[in-house]
């Protein structure tokens, strides 16, 4: 029987693999633009969320994209890689993209900083694969809201994430209960990004 021939197994595997792979490739191509658009929208939403007065959850995706395009300036050398919100030519806030390794996979987000570069105006994440119900709680408003108004210009860590219930200061927030590892990584990602940004700005000003 042909099924028992050794060459048939190789030939059969090749044909079956080619058949299923071509369907997967075709389907991925078909949805590629949509996936990329989703990623871009998620990023733009995160940027608007961290800038004061810019985010409105009732806006359609198209309106949000238009607001992002019309009202924000793209990163340049003078902003050291941050998006800027301007009013009458004057910078009113920065939106700094941050990224780094989370507990399971990379975490990507945006941190908003006010015009005098002293205070956080907001924090949002647009990509994370932390544990659902635990580390993934970093995207919840209750965790993110804590960052608003925190001072990042003090000596030492820009932001400290303390254990739940612990006393906190002007640059501290509380961690998510049961998500210590994710919070340690979020703290590192934010602090590295802020320090690098501050150094770049200093170099630009010299």
């Amino acid at each position, binding site marked *: 029987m042909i099924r028992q021939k050794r060459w048939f197994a190789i030939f059969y595997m090749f044909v079956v693999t080619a058949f299923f792979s071509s369907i997967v490739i075709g389907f991925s191509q078909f949805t590629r633009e949509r*996936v990329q658009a989703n990623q871009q929208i998620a990023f733009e939403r995160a940027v608007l969320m961290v800038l004061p007065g810019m985010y409105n959850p009732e806006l359609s995706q198209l309106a949000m994209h238009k607001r992002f395009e019309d009202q924000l300036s793209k990163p340049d050398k003078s902003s050291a890689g941050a998006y800027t919100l301007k009013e009458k030519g004057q910078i009113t806030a920065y939106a700094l993209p941050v990224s780094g390794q989370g507990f399971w996979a990379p975490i990507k987000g945006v941190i908003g900083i006010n015009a005098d570069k002293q205070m956080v105006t907001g924090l949002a994440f647009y990509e994370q694969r932390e544990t659902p119900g635990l580390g993934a709680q970093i995207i919840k408003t209750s965790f993110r809201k804590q960052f608003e108004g925190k001072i990042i210009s003090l000596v030492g860590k820009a932001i400290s994430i303390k254990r739940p219930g612990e006393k906190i200061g002007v640059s501290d927030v509380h961690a998510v209960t049961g998500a210590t590892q994710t919070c340690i990584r979020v703290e590192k990602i934010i602090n590295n990004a802020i320090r690098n940004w501050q150094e770049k700005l200093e170099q630009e000003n010299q």
Partner: protein
Amino acid sequence: MAVVSKKSEAGKIIAEGLWNNNPIFKQVLGICSALAVTNLVLNTIVMCGALVFTLSLSAATVSILRNFTPRNIRMMVETLIIAFYVIIVDVILKAYWPQMSDNLGPYVGLIITNCIVMGRCEAYGNANPPLRAFIDGFFNALGYSFVLLTIAAFREILGMGTFLGIAVPYFSTGWDKWIVMVMPPGAFFMLAIVTWILRSVQISREEKDK
């Protein structure tokens, strides 16, 4: 007569998948995902939907190809077919429900390694006609889903005070939330309790029937 026989055959397959030979508490298959995705009910529903889709179609496809697939490479072919359906689910979520794709993270991809899928394809799909294989896959996945949803409901309510993200009276306000329930140990406790209860009911029914 033939119609009655076909109906009783389908009923038997359904009863086997849902209860008599339930993948979780009888066959003890697919335990990894039962532990991993059950801390939120919504995530569990989507995961179960993905498994129903993957398992029923994989079993039917394996069955369609069973007369052509050489025996010595059948498991490679089965893995390829399962991976195909899982990737389709993953791409659909990324394109049409990105929020859920983010929530489930790596777990959708891990359906490929779910023992129930390979187990049913190998044990049933490989030896039965496509329609029967489809029904067997579909109801085994539903059997898996009802146990997982039971576990998820208890874990979310006791651990977070919510059900499908909506606050549950008393559990969201007066209840001292059991954080351990949404952490990995909570999954072990709940799985053991649910398995213990359902197996006890099953054994007592079997003894009554004797």
